[in-house]
């Protein structure tokens, strides 16, 4: 719409910046590269985003907003299909904003907003996973007590949040390229879901094994029957 002109430029800058950050890592992307990639003058870039930190903050705010929406759905996860979908969607969000995790230490050191907000984000994720586990327990999918829920929620958050870092280390040259996204996310969702295995009720366990096999695209993990 014609009336949205200023927003449109700002939007285009954000889209290209996200692509560059994801591809090369935030510390390796200069404002010079961003303006030349967009073919705009430095003045034009500074007009919309006077600081590189503002770009990081704007992208982070978007990630945060999308994550909040998704996490709010955690208490409604009633079966394993929902749970799988939930994990996969969370991983997709992380993939979309993977620059945040790729150079996390660097970003945490120099950006106050991230320093303050990322730990809240972990806390929110943990609460959401607790709600998810409680709901699955309530629906007879899991038999899990409060202590086990606390432990599992943390395990799931850690694995989910740093899954892509694990993939990256295993194959630094290719893991962060778009064509590898699907497989990475599937593997991640499968392993996070696998953490539910010890607590799954017998019927759920068969379902879980089936799901993991389907989504892994192979014979699936060799899980031992308890």
């Amino acid at each position, binding site marked *: 719409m014609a009336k949205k002109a*200023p927003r449109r430029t700002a939007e285009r800058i954000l889209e290209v910046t996200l692509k560059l950050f994801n591809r090369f890592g935030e510390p390796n992307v200069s404002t010079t590269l961003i303006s030349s990639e967009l073919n705009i003058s430095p003045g034009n870039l500074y*007009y919309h985003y006077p600081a590189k930190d503002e770009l990081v903050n704007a992208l982070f705010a978007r990630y945060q907003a999308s994550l909040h929406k998704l996490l709010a759905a955690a208490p409604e996860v009633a079966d394993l299909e929902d749970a799988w979908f939930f994990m996969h969607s969370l991983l997709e969000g992380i993939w979309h904003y993977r620059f945040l995790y790729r150079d996390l230490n660097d970003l945490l050191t120099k950006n106050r907003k991230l320093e303050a907000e990322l730990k809240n984000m972990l806390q929110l994720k943990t609460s959401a996973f607790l709600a998810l586990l409680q709901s699955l327990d309530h629906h007879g999918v899991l038999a899990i007590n409060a202590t086990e829920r606390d432990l599992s929620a943390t395990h799931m958050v850690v694995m989910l949040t740093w899954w892509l870092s694990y993939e990256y280390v295993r194959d630094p040259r290719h893991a962060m390229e778009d064509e590898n996204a699907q497989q990475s996310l599937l593997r991640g969702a499968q392993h996070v879901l696998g953490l539910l295995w010890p607590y799954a009720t017998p019927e759920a366990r068969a379902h879980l094994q089936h799901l993991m096999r389907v989504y892994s695209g192979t014979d699936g993990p060799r899980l031992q029957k308890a």
Partner: protein
Amino acid sequence: MQHWQLFSTPLHLSPEQVRQLWPRLHRGDTEPCPTADDLLEAWTLFHRGEFEAAVERGLSLTAKGQHAAWTLVNRATAVYANYMEPQESLRLNLLEQAAEQARMHTELQPDNPNAWYLWAYSLGRYAQGISVAKALAQGMGIRVRDALEKTIALNPAHSDAKFALATFHAEVIDKVGELIARMTHGARKDLGLALYAEAHAHNPSSLVGMLEMAKGLVMLEGDAQQAHAHTLYQQVSGAVATDALEHLVVALARATLSDL
């Protein structure tokens, strides 16, 4: 030392043409047209877009004790940094340098409104460059606001300072929220809006002012101001630029509109 980027098409302006255009070009900052030829020649370099040469010439004049030339030196440095320097670190260094020189200028000529204005301008752009939230935490907000208020107190007709002070209100509110902005930095939405209106009424042909106002109004009032902002971009992009800075500003407005 690495040379500054060159303005794409330096303008062919003579000192005499600059003298004639002066009232229009300096309506916003009310800088008096130099009576000395050497200072007018240095300003001519600035208006042509030869920013590095303008700074060099200006510094040769300040070295001879012409304190008024600091206005030119600092303006050329800040404008170049803000519109043309592609490297973020160099840009920030230049803004910091301009701010420090302008602060010294306020000591040399405490009654010169443009010494105060350029201190605020350079420091404000520097603050934006390191991120407004970080700058506020370091106490830069108060210094920028005080220097702009001082400029206006010395010269109530300084519309550039009014546009800038309005932008100060808009930026602070946009970054920390209306409540904290009012409580800790004295920034208020109604003041920002009133200052933009006042500055625009006083200097309706200021292209830089319109561009700042387009962005600031959206920061202050969101979507309700999109249509107004769009009209301002159209006005700027349709304007005939007379000097290098206006060329840069018109190009920026056109680029923004071409993103439709």
